[in-house]
């Protein structure tokens, strides 16, 4: 009686993909990068005050809720990346090992920057019966992330590397991966400028002073960006093609804060980022008007006269086209701002102004906006060797790039013009996301320990590097 005519093996799944590690690579890139893009539109732009909402404004009032979706997406990607790494180690495919480490570190850096202490060293151990990974301290996570990127750089410097497939980011170009790894390592090192300046300066100097050993991005050609496809399901997630409804798109407007800043700098990127208001176009006097962050529902919808009086983000570029807007993981221009800051701080022996101006120029070039001849010498832009000036341009540079604008604001306090909106629930600008409720219920002991250690699971609790 225990003989069966049917099999209990599912015919529609694979039990082994050892010969096709690229299936995991494509999957993890898609998942994490789409998350980063979605998160930068709906949360990152608000937290960084590039944008503001005119309805359902509770997020803008600092009711940040459970960002469990983002947490899950990054951890799913990390899970896939770790499986990929394991698979590649078994078959000695060093290039996949390196690429996996870089993607993991990129995802981990966003997680720890936004949540603080997070599960890291015990992640992905369910198969070994560890169902509740402990939370590592952010300091230790940073140490390891910097080491992982160094290892990736070393692995990618070897000879006779296997070509990788399924790579959405650099189409298998391992030299580009190497540049991304070292550039990302500089971004992470810089994050420690306030808590551990010696590590920060050491890492950045090491990379800058040994370009042969540590190649970094050298032009916009080297950008870590992903161009989406023209059709669903891999069009840009915030476009008509991806069935993101136009009404939802229009709930977000360019922020008054961002408009004021760019107008103050007479920055022509403003005309690229934003559309003039519907009303002003009808009146024949096109103008860009921003929405104030942190206004309660109702009044928010009547601000400046209502939605016809407020500017949208360039709807043709950012919404109607399925794939013009890229996912920006890291731009060459950011590398220049990092170097500018390192030089300004005296960590490297170089001219901060040159880096700064290269960064600004490269960002204009990236967006395809002509750099006005007098821009680099105009008031508020001209290099004055202050961190504020560098950070202002870096902030503009980080527009619509996951949560980076907000994160860098929390590190440096610039732009100083960012402040809680009039109806916001807190007077201080929050620092982090609360841990997802799933962690609280499913990993309670470790969650509680971490929450106590960081000083309470509130959005106003500072992460370690922010001190």
């Amino acid at each position, binding site marked *: 009686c225990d003989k069966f005519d049917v099999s209990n093996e599912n015919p529609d799944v694979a039990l082994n993909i050892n010969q*096709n590690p690229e299936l995991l690579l494509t999957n993890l890139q898609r998942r994490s990068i789409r998350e980063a893009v979605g998160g930068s539109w709906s949360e990152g732009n608000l937290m960084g005050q590039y944008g503001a909402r005119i309805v359902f404004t509770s997020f803008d009032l600092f009711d940040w809720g*459970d960002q469990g979706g983002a947490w899950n997406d990054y951890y799913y990607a990390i899970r896939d990346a770790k499986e990929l790494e394991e698979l590649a180690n078994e078959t000695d495919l060093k290039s996949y090992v390196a690429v996996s480490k870089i993607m993991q570190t990129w995802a981990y850096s966003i997680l720890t920057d936004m949540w603080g202490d997070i599960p890291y060293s015990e992640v992905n151990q369910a198969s070994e019966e560890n169902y509740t*990974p402990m939370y590592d301290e952010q300091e230790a996570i940073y140490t390891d992330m910097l080491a992982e990127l160094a290892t990736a750089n070393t692995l990618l410097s070897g000879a006779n590397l296997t070509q990788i497939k*399924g790579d959405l980011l650099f189409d298998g170009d391992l030299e580009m991966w190497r540049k991304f790894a070292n550039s990302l390592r500089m971004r992470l090192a810089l994050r420690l400028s306030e808590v551990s300046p010696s590590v920060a300066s050491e890492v950045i100097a090491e990379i800058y002073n040994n370009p042969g050993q540590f190649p970094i991005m050298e032009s916009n050609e080297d950008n870590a960006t992903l161009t989406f496809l023209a*059709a669903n399901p891999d069009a840009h997630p915030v476009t008509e*093609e991806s069935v993101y409804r136009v*009404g939802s798109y229009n709930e977000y407007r360019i922020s008054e804060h961002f408009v004021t800043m760019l107008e103050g700098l007479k920055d022509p990127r403003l005309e690229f980022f934003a559309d003039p208001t519907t009303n002003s176009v009808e009146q024949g006097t096109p103008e860009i008007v921003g929405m104030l962050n942190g206004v309660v529902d109702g009044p928010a*919808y009547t601000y400046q006269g209502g*939605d016809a009086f407020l500017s949208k983000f360039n709807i043709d570029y950012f919404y109607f086209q399925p794939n013009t807007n890229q996912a920006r993981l890291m731009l060459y221009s950011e590398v220049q701002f990092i170097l500018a800051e390192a030089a300004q701080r005296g960590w490297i022996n170089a001219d901060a102004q040159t880096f700064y101006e290269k960064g600004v120029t490269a960002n204009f070039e990236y967006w395809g906006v002509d750099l006005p001849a007098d821009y680099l010498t105009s008031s508020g832009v001209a290099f004055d060797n202050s961190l504020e000036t560098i950070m202002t341009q870096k902030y503009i540079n980080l527009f619509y790039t996951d949560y980076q604008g907000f994160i860098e604001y929390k590190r440096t306090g610039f732009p100083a013009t960012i402040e809680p909106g009039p109806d916001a629930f807190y007077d201080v600008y929050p620092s982090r996301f609360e841990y997802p409720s799933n962690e609280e219920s499913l*990993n309670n002991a470790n969650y509680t320990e971490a929450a106590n250690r960081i000083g309470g699971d509130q959005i106003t609790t500072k992460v370690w590097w922010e001190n």
Partner: protein
Amino acid sequence: QVTFSGKVLDQNNVPLPGASVVAKGSANGVATDFDGNFEIELPGGNEILVISYIGYIAQDFDTAGKSNATIVLREDSQLLDEVVVTALNITRDEESLGYSVQKVAGEEISQSTSTNTVSTLSGRTAGVQVVTNGSGPGQSSSVVIRGYSSMQGDNQPLFIVDGIPINNNTDTRTNTLGGASNMNLDYGNGAAEINPNDVESISVLKGANATALYGSRAANGAVIITTKSGKGRKGGISFSSKTTFESVLKAPEYQGVYGQGKNFDFQFVDGYGSGTYDGVDESWGPLLDGTLRAQHDSPTSNGLRGGDVHGLDYVLGSSGVDLDRRGTITPTPFVYGGNPAEEFMETGRTLINTVSFYGSNDNGNYRVSYTNLDNKGIVPNTDIKRNTISASGDYQITDRLKVSSKINYIRSDSDNRHVNGYGTESVMYLFIWWGQQVNVNSLRNYWQDGLEGFQQFNYNYNYHDNPYFTMYENTNGLAKDRIIGNLSATYDISNDFKFMLRGGRDFFSEYRFIKRAYSTQRFPNGQYREDKINFQETNLDFLLTYDKNVTDKFHVNANFGGNRMVQKNHFNSLMANKLLIPGIYSFSNVDGALVQRTSRPEKQINSLYAFAQLGWNNSIYLDLTARNDWSSTLPEQNNSYFYPSASLSVVLSDLFDFGSQDVLSFAKLRGGWAQVGSDTDAYRLSDFYALGTPVGDNPTASPSNTLPNFDLKPEIQTSYEFGTDLRFFNNKLSLDATYYNTVSRNQILDIDLPITSGKTARTINAGKIRNQGLEVMLGVNPIRNEDFNWNSSFNFGLNRNRVLELADGVQRYQYGGNGISLIAEEGGSLGDMWGTGLVKVEDENSPYNGQVIFNEGLVQQDNTLRKLGNFNPDFTLGWNNTVTFKNLSLNFLFDWRQGGELLSRTRLIAATSGNVVETLWGRSPEYGGPHPGISDSGLSYTNDDGVTQTDGIIGDGVKLQDGGYVPNDVIVPANAYHNNRYRRDNDTEGIYDATFIKLREARLTYDFPTKLFKGDDIKKLSFSVIGTNLWLWAKDFNHGDPELLSFGGGSYVPGVENATVPTTRSLGFAINVEF
């Protein structure tokens, strides 16, 4: 040859229609007509007639020397003839059963006003809960017997038709394996396809004792359907016709006072936000007072409508608005457009016509029937058509060999089934976000002028689809062929031994055709999709029976049998998610790649079983069963599992003399203990990689999310029950009561893991869940005489569930949800609904304890999950009545559900959109705003911008001030207050008590006296007026029928209403004729 005529009456001289009159020792027989009259030809001269009628003692009548007579049958007070169908289709005397089985007669079902066989169980059976997703023959019904016992299983009973298990799935793979953005579609459940007119009777086996012989698959009870045969019936034809008209029972309560817009203002320009708040889909706009305003349906200077905004060269992917072509709008009065759900829904219509032919002779019988069901739903352009051919026959081939067969062919077709749930494809969703001035009729012409087939017309282009466009263009068709059949042979080996062999199969092929037109919000370039389901389940059984009266008093019936069940359930979906040419629904017309999804579970269960019944003196019965199953879904070391049962029935009134039957006519005690094991789904024993959708040319895969358990064990349910069956006053009062207690152990659960562990769940065996409850059936026959008879029965059910244990280290286990979370914790019960709510004062010493804490005048969300209620009722009570006066009979059924909670997502979300009545509060002095408590405010106040306002709300509660609480005094606009309070995560604000009383069915029938048709061959003619859901009283819920459930993520979610299409009230008539 003589002709003998007569009349058959009961002791009260009430005629007995349908009594059998047979010449003894022959096949020559007739049945009495409605008035109890009969006429029989006796070819052999005067003979002895045997006159019998169910519930009465059969009588021999010698016709010698007579040509007519009146014969009085005596009621059999011991009801020896009350037989029920039990497991394995074995017919048993009810009194011999040691467990509770409830029978619903076929007439109840075929004459019920419900068009769905499953729904007819509601109110007619104690302890059986039936909930439907909307109404109508095409919608799913969920049946739960004796409470929810399994956290992960579907808790649905096994449905058996003529001894063969049939598929009762609600196949939701269209929703769960979609990959694209299609929303929840309900294509109905399998058992609902059984034609009510073909049903002879239904037995509901409630507990493990009753179902032990079915094993694993009937762990949640079994519903045994026996279809009609020609047995014992003279040749004839019957015809029945039923016509009903359906309408909305209760629609959500929309506000109807303020129209679309914001800030009390609105003016339409293009529906994209270029006008005054014309991009919003909310009703915070101006009073609907007839003021002239530009609207989407206002005429324009170019003879178009205000909403015809797109240019003729409009290409999707750009805004394409051409207002010059449209022209300037002539404003029209801004008035209430009417309750959109009521205005949009149409009168549904259901026709069911059945014709059947039947007959029998000494050696066999046959019945053939054809039924045509034609339903037009209340949602425009939805329908279901079902044609059923049913044939059955028995034939005694030799003295020892008998064969019988039944076969049903069912063809279901629909041009369109509607989407249910929250999202743009669902019409009820479209009315959650709405402008109260919009009259649905203005949207009937749903294409934009000149852009037919290309761009829909609507009042809002920012978010929504036109509901008529949705129903007429975005259709979800169905074509299903199903055959349920069986063939069995019984051979009498000797007087005591017989051997039965049976094979049965349920198989179907179902196609689902899904079309989405250009300009659909979710599919701007359209979609075409076909889902195909190929299902087959084959059962082979044998049964060897030994049956002997060992002595006068001792009777033995012993059996040994086996079953082999193989089930294959293949699903294949093909999608073109972007079309090249609008309106061509073909896979050749795809822009990009086709997407394919498959799911092909297969499983097998082999079983051997034995059972015996020992009877003593027809008054004490002992039943013993034992069964062993081998399931292909469990690991080798655990795939064999054994379970026994025992039950005892004692007829006290036979054993002891209770004196006159006038007081206690019958008394029986029964009790039993049983175990049932159950397996799991196919393919749960491997750690695999799921292959995903490629990114362009790059294929993808991801590791499975569930960590399998390679040592999975079967679930075991242990239960005991005892009960009594008492009858008083010559059966005028009967009471059947059962107490049961069921404990389910070793449940197969997917315990959630944090994703940081690399998996999101692991499969384990754990948990211990107890259901205990009481079922009481009370029958009363208060009046009975020749002209007037009133039969009344009460079905009471009460179930209490308790989670005794969860897994080690697991405090809470979430097993479902939709808005709320269904969470089990030790000491809690299944059906507990958890959710989030508002921050409140939690300090018993504070005078403000329990009050809402406001921040800047707004409520604050408290993310902590808390228990909000339980979706299970405290008890249910059905009251079923038949009142007969001469030829007129009235049947009515009341259903009372007490307690249990319901979450209304319609309330929560339509309150943020300002569309439901709750949101009137605070909009003007008339509706309580601004709050009268504010100092020197009167009915107006000055806001921060120095503007005088007459709207606003000061929420009831406190605010924090100087480290303590003071009464809240901050005024906020009504829009901000309601938006915040009814945020969809604030589940506490959408919870209702689900108590209701319903007049579920009523039927008035007139039986025409057959003497009217003297000379004709009409044996019976009746006409009925019928109605369903004629009256509803809901204690608390104001947005519809509290019996609604939602349908999400591949399963029913009871206790949540989520933009579900309203249930219906139906009225109609029925005609039954027999020739």
